[in-house]
């Protein structure tokens, strides 16, 4: 009871400080709860959704002309497979449409909405009332959450020069082919629309879809890869892009990686905020002991034990933290739908927030225990304090051995010099402020660098995903001489360079691996080899570190590659990284590929333009080379489309981090300056009495923090610039990334740093504005 009295008296005497601390802990607990909830639920989220939507675990799509009944029979005969289904679909390799702010070109699979199916039936989230009409279309939910379409909107798409226009009848959820980053999207058309499209698109668009459901979802990748091994021929035909396969494991990995990264950023940021709160608590405890040292002496003299006094301090902060953590956890349920929105944007799936007592309890426990530990450590010195020492105001730890910034000699204006004196006087506190500001500046810069690379200069981000940033891909026709075609393209005006880069798959030591084949890897913009080098000669290969790890190989080792019946031994020359295909990839030269694929000459010519217009160039290619070229793809459009879903998510993260940074800077400065004014009340009164105006004193206080803020911002800025890539590498290491080389845009960072310094100065001025209400007389006599 005695302890409770002391505690409540302490809280009452520092209400505003208790409140700002409360807010900090609320933010920390809120972020921690959101981050942990998302991180822990994400794994199960895709599986639960897949089950809820009756999605197939494996999907194989191919041109009807390439379809073989053996494909389905293969799945029917596998013991892991529970059920299979096949249906006719319309399959288009490249459909151009508007997605968000960009025109994108992606593969498209059209299913008949009125056909019976067990796997992946249409599950609309929103739908226009009334029966479906001819000209209606059902599109994935991502079109609403990420691309901004609404029910009833017109949806236009262009396929081989023909434009088709539909009315959006409904949005539906799907885990397979629901977002542009899968490279292909799935649509449902009512029977009339379906037939109409089939007629217009012709037989070349006729496709088949095989869906398989497994007993155990975790086997989906294994079974699909086994299918690849069984039927290696279909995917080796790089001239036939009309083949797509996916499994729930792959989809989950592609879909959840960004969400996981976002959640990890939130957790890391929450950790920063918790650390900030702990530092503030340490500061507050030390201060409250200093301020109340005489009271401590009185209490000790009255017979209170050190344990009781420490317990009252610990109870005070633990109580505030516990209540704040509960409020934070409760508020996180208000924020989780916002995060759910980000998840929906990234995955095209609805995230439903459920109450999780375990997670809330964990956040509460982490925050409260950390606060308790810091409070106990900070208040330990009460034990060694003798009552008489405390009654005399404690032992003065500050000795005025040097008069810093002497006013008769030091250079600088009077206000600045007085501010510098004040700054030196509060070294410990200023160190704390500098460290906190450095930490949150780092977080801000991290989020801004992330956004800049995803939204503005996407090259590094696209490279991270494993794609090549050419402007146009020209696919040579099967009978064309791709080497000669490339040489001719190189001569065209506006062409900077060109390189052949094909994608196929082959078996490395028995494992199927996605393989890039190029005539000259040195010409690629995406240099993903981080150790060793790309292959130059026919007996060389580079692999991702995931493959090397999986097969127990390193640079200098040999590896056997197989395609069909042919096999060849290659020397590993380099290790690379890729986020795609679960980080499993390999790279060989065209002469290298010819060892296992005799006659192989390369097909996909990646063209890099020198500022020329993509559409005009593509037109020119088609006109000039006619039958020599097959499909011509606008890569810029494709990249824009595939990355568009990330932009809004990363933007949301950036906004959250920046807002919280502003809030934390404001709170910290409020706490520190408020405390400082109370502590220096008499001194400020003397200065006011001698003729200093309120504004001058405010400026002194603000200026005394400017060097501290600048130091913190600079430290955070430099660390952010130097280590954002390292932190990202760490966050993405589980996804196959070994080295991230995001562009650190210095002008943008400078802008943030200047903004934070300006904000700090403004907040300092605002908080110290309170002095204006106090008269010189009042300041001296109070």
């Amino acid at each position, binding site marked *: 009871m005695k302890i409770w009295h002391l505690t409540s008296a302490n809280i009452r005497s520092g209400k505003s400080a208790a409140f700002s601390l409360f807010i900090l802990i609320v933010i920390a607990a809120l972020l921690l709860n959101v981050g942990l909830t998302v991180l822990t639920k994400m794994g199960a989220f895709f599986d639960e959704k897949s089950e809820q939507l009756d999605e197939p675990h494996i999907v194989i799509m191919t041109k009807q002309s390439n379809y073989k009944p053996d494909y389905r029979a293969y799945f029917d005969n596998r013991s892991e497979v529970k059920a299979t289904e096949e249906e006719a679909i319309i399959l288009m390799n490249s459909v151009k449409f508007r997605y968000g702010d960009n025109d994108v070109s992606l593969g498209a699979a059209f299913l008949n909405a009125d056909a019976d199916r067990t796997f992946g039936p249409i599950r609309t989230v929103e739908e226009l009332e009334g029966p479906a009409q001819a000209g209606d279309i059902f599109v994935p939910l991502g079109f609403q959450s990420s691309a901004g379409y609404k029910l009833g909107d017109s949806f236009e798409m262009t396929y081989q020069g023909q434009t088709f226009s539909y009315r959006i009848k409904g949005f539906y959820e799907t885990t397979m082919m629901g977002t542009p980053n899968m490279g292909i999207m799935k649509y449902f058309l009512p029977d009339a629309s379906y037939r109409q499209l089939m007629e217009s698109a012709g037989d070349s668009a006729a496709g088949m879809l095989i869906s398989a459901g497994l007993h155990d979802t975790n086997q989906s990748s294994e079974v699909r890869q086994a299918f690849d091994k069984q039927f290696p021929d279909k995917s080796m035909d790089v001239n036939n892009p009309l083949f797509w396969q996916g499994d729930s494991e792959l989809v989950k990995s592609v879909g959840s990686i960004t969400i996981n990264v976002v959640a990890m950023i939130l957790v890391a940021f929450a950790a920063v905020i918790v650390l900030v709160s702990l530092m503030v608590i340490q500061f507050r405890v030390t201060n409250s002991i200093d301020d109340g040292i005489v009271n401590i002496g009185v209490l000790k003299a009255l017979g209170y034990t050190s344990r009781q006094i420490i317990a009252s301090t610990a109870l005070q902060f633990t109580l505030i933290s516990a209540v704040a953590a509960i409020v934070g956890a409760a508020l996180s349920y208000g924020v989780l739908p916002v995060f759910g929105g980000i998840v929906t944007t990234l995955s095209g799936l609805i995230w439903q927030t459920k109450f999780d007592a375990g997670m809330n309890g964990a956040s509460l426990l982490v925050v409260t225990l950390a606060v308790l530990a810091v409070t106990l450590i900070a208040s330990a010195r009460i034990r060694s304090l003798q009552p008489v020492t405390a009654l005399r105001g404690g032992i003065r730890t500050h000795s*005025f051995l040097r*008069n810093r910034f*002497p*006013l*008769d000699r030091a250079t600088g204006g*009077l206000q600045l010099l*007085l501010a510098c*004196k*004040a700054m030196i*006087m509060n070294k410990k506190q200023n160190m704390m402020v500098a460290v906190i500001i450095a930490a949150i500046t780092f977080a801000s810069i991290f989020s801004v660098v992330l956004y800049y690379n995803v939204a503005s200069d996407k090259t590094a981000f696209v490279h991270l995903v494993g794609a090549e940033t050419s402007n146009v891909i020209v696919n040579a026709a099967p009978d064309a001489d791709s080497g000669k075609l490339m040489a001719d393209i190189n001569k065209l005006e506006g062409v900077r360079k060109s390189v052949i880069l094909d994608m196929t798959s082959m078996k490395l030591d028995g494992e199927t691996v996605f393989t890039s084949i190029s005539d000259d890897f040195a010409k690629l913009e995406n240099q993903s080899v981080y150790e060793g080098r790309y292959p130059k000669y026919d007996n060389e290969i580079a692999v991702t570190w995931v493959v090397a790890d999986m097969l127990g190989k390193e640079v200098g080792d040999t590896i056997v590659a197989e395609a069909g019946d042919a096999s060849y031994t290659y020397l590993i020359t380099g290790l690379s990284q890729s986020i795609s295909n679960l980080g499993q990839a390999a790279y060989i030269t065209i002469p290298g590929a010819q060892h296992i694929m005799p006659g192989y000459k390369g097909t996909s010519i990646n063209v890099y333009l020198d500022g020329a217009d993509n559409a005009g160039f593509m037109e020119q290619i088609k006109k000039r080379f006619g039958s020599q070229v097959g499909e011509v793809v606008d890569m810029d459009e494709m990249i824009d489309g595939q990355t568009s879903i990330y932009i809004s998510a990363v933007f949301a993260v950036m906004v959250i981090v920046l807002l919280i940074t502003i809030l934390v800077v404001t709170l910290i400065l409020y706490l520190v300056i408020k405390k400082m004014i109370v502590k220096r009340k*008499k*001194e400020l*009164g*003397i*200065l*006011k*009495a*001698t*003729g*200093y*105006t*309120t*504004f001058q004193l405010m400026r002194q206080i603000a200026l005394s923090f400017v060097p501290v803020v600048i130091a913190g911002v600079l430290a955070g800025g430099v660390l952010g610039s130097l280590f954002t890539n390292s932190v990202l590498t760490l966050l993405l290491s589980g996804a196959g990334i070994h080295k991230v080389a995001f562009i650190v845009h210095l002008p943008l960072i400078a802008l943030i740093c200047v903004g934070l310094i300006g904000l700090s100065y403004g907040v300092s001025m605002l908080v110290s504005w309170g002095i*204006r209400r106090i*008269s*010189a*007389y*009042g300041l*001296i006599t109070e």
Partner: protein
Amino acid sequence: MTTTELLRTEKLCKTFSSGGIQQHALKNLDISLVQGDFTVIMGSSGSGKSTLLYALSGMDKPTLGEIHFGGQELSKLNNDQLAVFRRKNCGFVFQQIHLLDSMSILDNVLASGLLVSKDRKAIAAKAKQLLAQVGLTEAAWGKFPSQLSGGEAQRAGIVRALINSPDVVFADEPTGALNSAASDSVLNVFTDVNRNGQSIVMVTHDLKTALRGNRVLYLRDGVICGDLRLDPYRPEHQHARHEKLTAFLAEMGW
């Protein structure tokens, strides 16, 4: 001899309210102070002495009434205008001395001086000259207030009050916290500067201190109830002044 008015109050009132209870500290005061005077304000505890001093100096705002000082009406100035007014026209000496703990003695003086003059060299020279004049040696200039004796610190406080050559120095019981020897040395400094024409308004309840003034105002319950004129202080005429002052104070019921 012609006299020039330094400041004048009209119907000056100051009321404090606490817990709904109004306390009238100053009631309709009409005072006129003359340049070059050493005015002493006396009265019993709670009579309103310090309240009057801080109202006259623009440290606190009156509730009602006017204060005319150097052609300005202080009650119409806002806090910042009052601060600018104080730095140019007033010097302050406090009972608790109130030097800034974190600054050396010289810096304490310069923190006031550099507010008015930008000529750092000249102000530093003047500060050093004044510090020497009040008997503080060069060794003391770089020390911190806590390293000086009370008397030394208070003399530094007087130098801080004088650094901007104010029209008037306001002193609130400047010897209240000092021992006898220190008090004498401080009072001698006040007497010296007054002799050089510096106007001083001092609150005290100490007879020995009051003897230094040439005018004594006696305050009771917020009202001036006595105004005694004396000749300028001379040590050799102490006896007659003492008698005159004690008689006055006895009449005031002190």
